[in-house]
């Protein structure tokens, strides 16, 4: 049984909505936060779901781009995006008032297991993009949240103010040591898992990072969910472009995911992420592509 099957009854049906840009600002090096007025999508979206945006029209933009919803409320949705190619460059230049066609809410998002008292969020780079709503929702339910975030450098850490306001504990790792530990976020996680004994781990980031966190979680016997990124065409389950290899066969990231139980994922040999970024920039129900 897929996530789509189990979650369909409670999920609002996706719809097409004209989404108007209210604000669009640079929040870190190469990363923007865009706020759309999209009341119908905002009313239904759940944490970890995404929207399929028609950023621009014309010959260069046949395909929509999927983006995780970072936060939603009061008729608005926020999207964290990294500028990785043509589509996200256009998005970065969108002025308030620009209207884009959005399909959403789409996909199966994060699941909060019954009785969760402590959760560990692991975000690498733009992996924070689907985690804003999640952190809020966990905190609202009284779950103690620890966030481990990794970035190339301190200036690329994302939304740390938001996370620090809702998380009981935050830990950082940067490639250059300008914030927190020097190294990958996966060097922090074994200690955090041992110290906090979380009931669930949520991971999003570059696929090698997610693979390592999944292995660490499995080793500690902690359930782990990952939000995966794939190139997408339809976004609604029809075209089979975005499949993820799982123990149950190839599943669609757009409707069976983008959030998968890590234990079900058959991790593929490392691909060159640059390939993805160039073909469909900003495709990110999970993280967008790490730039370097």
């Amino acid at each position, binding site marked *: 049984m897929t996530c789509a099957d189990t979650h369909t009854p409670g999920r609002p049906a996706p719809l*097409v909505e004209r989404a108007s840009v209210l604000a669009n600002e640079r929040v870190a090096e190469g990363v923007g936060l865009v706020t759309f007025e999209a009341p119908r999508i905002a009313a239904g979206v759940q944490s970890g779901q995404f929207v399929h945006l028609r950023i621009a029209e014309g010959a260069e933009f*046949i395909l*929509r781009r999927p983006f995780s919803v970072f936060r939603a409320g009061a008729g608005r949705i926020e999207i964290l995006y990294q500028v990785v190619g043509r589509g996200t460059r256009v998005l970065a230049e969108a002025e308030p008032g620009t209207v884009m066609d959005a399909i959403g809410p789409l996909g199966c998002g994060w699941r909060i297991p019954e009785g969760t008292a402590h959760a560990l969020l692991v975000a690498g780079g733009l992996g924070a993009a689907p985690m804003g709503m999640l952190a809020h929702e966990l905190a609202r339910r009284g779950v103690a949240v620890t966030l481990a975030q990794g970035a190339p450098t301190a200036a690329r850490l994302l939304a740390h103010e938001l996370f620090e306001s809702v998380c009981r504990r935050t830990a950082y790792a940067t490639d250059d040591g300008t914030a927190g530990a020097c190294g990958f976020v996966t060097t922090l996680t074994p200690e955090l898992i041992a110290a906090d004994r979380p009931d669930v781990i949520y991971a999003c980031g570059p696929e090698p990072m997610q693979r390592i966190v999944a292995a660490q979680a499995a080793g500690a016997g902690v359930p782990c969910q990952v939000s995966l990124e794939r190139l997408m065409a339809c976004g609604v389950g029809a075209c089979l*472009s975005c499949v993820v290899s799982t123990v149950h066969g190839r599943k669609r990231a757009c409707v069976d995911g983008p959030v998968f139980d890590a234990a079900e994922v058959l991790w593929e040999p490392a691909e060159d992420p640059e390939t993805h970024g160039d073909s469909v920039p900003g495709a990110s129900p999970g993280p967008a592509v790490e730039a370097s």
Partner: protein
Amino acid sequence: MTPAVDMRVRIGALEMRNPVMTASGTFGSGREYADFMDLSRLGALVTKGVSLLPWAGNDSPRIAETPSGMLNSIGLQNPGVEAFAANDLVWLATQDVPVVVNVSGHTVEEYAAVAERLDAEPVVSALELNISCPNVDEGGMAFGTSCPAAAQVTRAVRAVTDKTLIVKLSPNVTDIAEVARAVEAEGADAVSLINTLLGMAIDTNTFRPRLARGVGGLSGPAIRPVAVRMVWQVARAVSIPVVGMGGITCAEDAVEFMLVGATAVAVGTGTFVDPRTPLAVAEGLERFCAERGLGHVTKLTGALRE
């Protein structure tokens, strides 16, 4: 209100409310788009390709965006005809829309076995024989690029079903009209064209193909002029109906295909751009005819002034 324009068309025994179908592989089994449209307003719903046994499809990445189009190499991933019948056809039976099932195979025997299995399903109005998929190693396009092979698989399928049989042709040939004539001679009720054009795109950062399989099928507005030309050639060469497709995103695109001889049209990649495209094309076609005083949409078919 009585519609001013009679939009009904007929392909073999398949009676359609309007000429607009969905293109195989772009519409799943229809369920995926039921949230976005009233499926009963489609002329016909054409499903994803179905094979005898489950196919896993190709490795990722499976798509790449290109100017005015996209490449895909999905590789006909599907659960096999039994699972398809048990799940998708059961659901489709609850929908008020003619169902055309796209039939795929590695061998002539497999095509025939799938067709025979589907022949037993009342919900299936017609079969579309996919002899033109460029993304599988065996079968697929191999049958559509040789007249004897196209004839052979059409004959084998014709022998096991009386359902309306549409044969989907490959544009990756020197003379598509010749293949159309070959399948017409073996009892095809209609031909549909074009499937995707074999293409390739390279990532100049990595020096690698952008698709895992290297090559894939090009679709979208980029291929429309090629498709219109091929429909024009085929419609002059055969007397069976032609279903035209290739980059249709609006009613005027559909009109182009009908003017050169298509009886019906299909929307494919246009649905990815906007899920409302197939119905918008159907509504636009009706408006197009009404504005020109055409009482029946079939008046467009072959009305090209040459």
